[in-house]
């Protein structure tokens, strides 16, 4: 990592000695987490991102929620929740749900894997810098865990009128949420750029 850095939140000039894996450095002045390097961070990031992607695929394939009332019932998958909202004439609501619970987390995962996998071989994919910038910008807009709480609240909210049932996809989405959160705890801004700095492009142009 760079020797001389500045705190992201208070601009204090700092000199970094060598950062060992498994350290968490706080700004001595404002307490901001300057860097947090986990043990085996790259391996774990890749492992958690891969399993998150698998669970996400699983979560898209099966019923997410269903409900029953006097013998009549309905069932939706994750993607249908977006298309249902659109078909009922609520395009903005449908777009918000699509971005926060599907597009942002999915882009985050695909982007992470695109940038991180070649780093294992000490290489850098073309466009890695642009993708990394995008990743850091998307991160706050992925609201997977907020959505899960929303699902649980809606179960209770409608409980007096009908009973909602959680489908297999819901549990896959829970697993996806845990894996994504675990992956992101190993994503450290300074470390990511340090990895990119030390990796070489696939082919060096003579």
């Amino acid at each position, binding site marked *: 990592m760079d020797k001389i850095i500045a705190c992201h939140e208070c*601009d204090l000039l700092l000199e970094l000695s060598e950062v060992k894996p498994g350290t968490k450095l706080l700004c001595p*002045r*404002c307490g901001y987490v300057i860097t947090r390097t986990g043990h085996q961070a790259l391996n774990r990031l890749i492992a958690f991102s891969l399993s998150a992607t698998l669970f996400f695929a699983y979560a898209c394939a099966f019923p997410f929620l269903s409900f029953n009332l006097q013998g009549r019932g309905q069932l939706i998958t994750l993607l249908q929740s977006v298309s249902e909202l659109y078909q009922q004439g609520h395009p903005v*609501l449908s777009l918000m749900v699509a971005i926060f619970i599907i597009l942002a987390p999915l882009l985050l995962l695909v982007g992470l894997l695109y940038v991180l996998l070649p780093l294992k071989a000490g290489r850098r994919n073309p466009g890695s810098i642009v993708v*990394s910038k995008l990743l850091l910008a998307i991160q*706050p807009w992925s609201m997977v865990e907020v959505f899960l709480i929303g699902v649980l609240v*809606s179960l209770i*909210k409608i409980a007096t*009128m009908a009973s909602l049932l959680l489908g297999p996809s819901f549990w896959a989405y829970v697993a996806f949420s845990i894996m994504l959160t675990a992956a992101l705890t190993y994503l450290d801004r300074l470390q990511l*750029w340090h990895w990119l700095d030390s990796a070489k492009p696939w082919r060096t142009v003579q």
Partner: protein
Amino acid sequence: MTPVYDPHSAAAQGLANCHTCGKLSASHLHHCPRCHSPLHLRIPHSLQYTWALLLTGALLYIPANILPVLQINQLGSSSSNTILGGVALLWEQGSYPVAIVIFIASVIIPLAKLFVLAWLCSSVQRHHQARPRERTRLYRLTELVGRWSMIDVFVVAILVALVQLGNLLAVQPGAAALAFGGVVIITMLAAMSFDPRLIWDKYGNQHPQ
């Protein structure tokens, strides 16, 4: 207005910290040499943007609370709820923990965010020097909890997408759902546009702008 940067800050040495990749570069460069993001000592017009977004958020907060967020049609009769009405209903049904969660996420957090960010902006403009560490922490907290306000919007989205049985039982979103979603997005943008490093800058005797 030229702030007098704290002597321990990177800005005082003419070094700009890249927002995206954290590389320090000479501030006369316009783009970060590593990631090509625009480079500046402080986020340009940070306070103006934050104030504008806060004002928009505060205005949207009014319809978000006055208008119904959810309309439930059951066997010909329809009932609609505002956000606070929904919390009261959950409380009456005895779902106290859920009522408290929704109350905190939908009422307290957005209001607290608006007030805290407005106070931080005005504290910077008044050259408030006391307790910079605590103010920075408060800022960090508003950034951290902001997204949790989306819970209610997701509840509406889930119920509307799923519960459609015609006359038997059907759920429609109210106008407040969009307004409230807007409040959450706009206050998140406001928190992002505020530059906490301004808290640590000193202004000498000059007045800002």
